[in-house]
């Protein structure tokens, strides 16, 4: 069953219906894992998500519907992750905004004077439809997202795959708007770069080089 109406879904969850559980797990599990990983690290992320599910079901009768079920659930994941970290006396692994990897990455594309060192090449694909029709490219995009550092992975999936607002994302991940903007820029640029590499090499092949 596909739950279009959130109220129907919530009622079925409160009634303990297996189909409803199956639906929410299927649609939320991955974004919950991304959030858990980015806050608590990969090794305990799965346990955090398991704990969070129980908390979500426990708290559901008191859900005030001030946000979507998804956003509310992700905040519970965030809280669960932070509590878990405190229990294990770890500090929140927000990640260093100024990591070396990103610095060297931007150095590749630009010269010291701020000009492009290798400007964007021509892309044959001109629309999302054209891109979506290319299975090879889709695989490349998914694998690019999979290989992102946890913080960038969380932010690009919440923002661009799950269509959650920047305000809600900052709330869920407990980061400032400016930090979120930097992370999102880096993540999106990596996706752009992956497509650019593909399109660039296609051009080279066509030229018979």
């Amino acid at each position, binding site marked *: 069953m596909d739950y279009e109406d959130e109220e129907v879904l919530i009622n079925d969850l409160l009634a*303990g219906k*297996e189909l409803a*559980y*199956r639906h929410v*797990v*299927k*649609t939320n*599990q*991955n*974004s919950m*894992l991304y959030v858990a990983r980015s806050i608590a690290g990969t090794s305990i992320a799965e346990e955090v998500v*398991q704990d969070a*599910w*129980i908390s979500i*079901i426990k708290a559901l009768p008191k859900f005030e519907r001030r946000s979507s079920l998804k956003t509310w659930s992700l905040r519970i994941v965030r809280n669960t992750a932070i509590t878990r970290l405190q229990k294990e006396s770890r500090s929140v692994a927000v990640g260093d905004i100024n990591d070396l990897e990103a610095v060297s990455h*931007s150095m590749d*594309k*630009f010269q010291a*004077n*701020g*000009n*492009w060192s290798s*400007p*964007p090449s021509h*892309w044959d*694909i*001109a*629309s*999302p439809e054209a*891109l*979506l029709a290319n299975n090879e490219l*889709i695989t490349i*995009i*998914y694998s690019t997202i999979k290989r992102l550092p946890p913080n960038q992975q969380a932010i*690009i*999936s919440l923002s*661009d*795959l*799950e*269509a959650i607002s*920047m305000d809600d994302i900052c709330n869920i991940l407990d980061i400032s708007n400016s930090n979120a*903007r930097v992370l*999102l*820029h880096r993540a*999106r*640029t990596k*996706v*752009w770069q992956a*497509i*650019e590499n593909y399109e660039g090499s296609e051009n080279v092949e066509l030229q018979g080089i």
Partner: protein
Amino acid sequence: MLNCKEFSQLASAHIDGDLSIYMRMKIRTHMFMCHDCRKFVNQLRLSIRTLNRLKSVEPKESDVEKQVKILMEYEKNKTV
């Protein structure tokens, strides 16, 4: 005056409409004069629109089963 590197760092926020009026002006000015950066913004926008249309990868069926089982157990023990 923005250089191309500075422009590229603002491109994402520009596409989302999350820039001040002052920065929007600087962005537009640079874009007007720079063909490479216009191309970059269009390509970045295309990349993002494609992501918007991608289905979120679904978790493995076995992982879903495992989690649903745990929740059903919890439900059962709740009413006992």
